[in-house]
């Protein structure tokens, strides 16, 4: 509720983020439109498929990109973290739920807008969309968000040992920009590189959920993706819990 209320309270901020998403989408569309000036098909994509991919990618980014690492790092740095130690709530869970509620509101509005644009630009994608896929899409997006959130939490908890964990968040953003499928679909990368990326968690946060939404994977592949997402979610959750337990033993706050 707090997240929803905040999102509603600062409407201008919300409108500006929508414009930001739109500009990012535009850049991708213009780049790939220029690429398709020379050919009809690249890999498994024609112009429409690549445009749909980037529309859906924007929705995925809006929904799953977690920034709680900034808040966690700041709480530790300023000592605000202390107040959570005395409360009967899990700090990690609180941060995840708060961000989730905030993102969900923004993403639903953003998704509606982008889907409307997508329906206008490529009506055949919307009309041929099988509604039966919706529960799987919801599940893969939820798992992608949890992976992203736990990764972000791990970075934030590094603030127990580092003076400025925010820098690591920027490293994380750079890595995801490079090798998660945000800037180009994984299957257009050089094969060896795509193979390596396939084993890293980042593609399961952005690329594969987008492909699931686009319907570009077989049933077996979807089940495999969900399995890997569950594996990484549990692994990252356990690692973030480990960092939290070790961190609070080291944590000190003066005057809080």
């Amino acid at each position, binding site marked *: 509720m707090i997240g929803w209320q905040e999102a509603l309270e*600062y409407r*201008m901020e919300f409108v500006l983020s929508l414009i*930001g998403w739109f500009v990012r989408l535009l850049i991708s569309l*213009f780049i790939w439109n*220029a690429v398709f000036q020379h050919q009809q098909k690249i890999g498994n994509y024609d112009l429409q498929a690549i445009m749909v991919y980037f529309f859906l990618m924007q929705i995925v980014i809006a929904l799953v990109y977690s920034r709680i690492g900034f808040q966690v790092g700041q709480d530790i740095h300023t000592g605000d973290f202390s107040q959570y130690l005395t409360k009967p709530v899990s700090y990690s869970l609180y941060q995840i739920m708060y961000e989730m509620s905030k993102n969900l509101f923004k993403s639903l509005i953003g998704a509606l807008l982008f889907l409307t644009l997508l329906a206008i630009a490529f009506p055949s994608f919307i009309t041929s969309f099988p509604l039966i896929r919706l529960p799987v899409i919801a599940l893969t997006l939820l798992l992608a968000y949890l992976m992203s959130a736990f990764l972000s939490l791990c970075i934030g908890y590094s603030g127990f040992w580092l003076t400025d964990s925010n820098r690591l968040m920027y*490293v994380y953003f750079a890595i995801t920009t490079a090798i998660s499928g945000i800037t180009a679909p994984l299957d257009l*990368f*050089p094969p060896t590189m795509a193979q390596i990326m396939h084993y890293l968690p980042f593609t399961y946060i952005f690329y594969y959920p987008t492909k699931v939404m686009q319907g570009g994977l077989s049933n077996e592949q979807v089940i495999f993706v969900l399995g890997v997402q569950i594996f990484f979610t549990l692994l990252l959750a356990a690692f973030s819990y480990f960092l939290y337990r070790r961190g609070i033993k080291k944590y000190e706050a003066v005057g809080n």
Partner: protein
Amino acid sequence: MILKNAAIFWALVKINLKRLFEYRALFFVECFTMVLWSLAYILLIEVIFLNTPTLAGWTKSQALLILAFYYSFMTTAEIFFIDNFERFALNLRRGNLDLALTKPVSSRLLVFFQYMQFQDTSHYVMTIMLFIYAIRDLPQPIDPLFFLGGLLMVIPAAILNFCMHSVAATIAFWVERSDTLNTLMWNFRQTAKYPRQIYQGFFQQLFTFLIPFAVLSTVPAETAMKIPQPWYIFLLIALTLVFFYVSRWFWNKGLKKYSSAG
């Protein structure tokens, strides 16, 4: 007036340099982050050109040269003012502008150049490497004189970049929570990483004249590669002048709206 502002600017540089020597490790952390960010975009360009011979008439090495020019003006921005723009909305809400306003110097200079990030000078290393990587494969060998001309065009590009950020930051005088404007400006800046010719129709006009990030790195690159576009060189300089005066006027309007926090 110019000499007085230059003296204040130099004083701010000295204070911030001292800060860098206090936190030397930051230099290496920044260097590492910059390498990663550059690699991310170099990789995108590699992937694009794996699938096409040219992008809106630009070859891979030419597109990389645009990226190198982008990092030239952006590194300058990151060292001197970007961080101050990002703090501005928060400072305004906290009433921290009072101190700058009571000083007998340009308030914009004091506010937007207060904290300099000299650890970001490490970005120039990566930028130089990118220049070398791009130049070695250009379709035609580069003329040193024109390359120098291209580097000189980075100066108006950097000033225009500052002025656009100044206009965006000044909106904070009217809009209480405008922190997202920083993210929005980051998104607009991304248009400068690619050839301006990829943008079509209305958006080409928008990113060339109204929010002219698309010309910031393409025009210096065109100059360096001797691509005859004198109209665009004139346009970049003219836009810089227009935005300089508009941003100053807008700042002064904003100051009248400021009522402190107390």
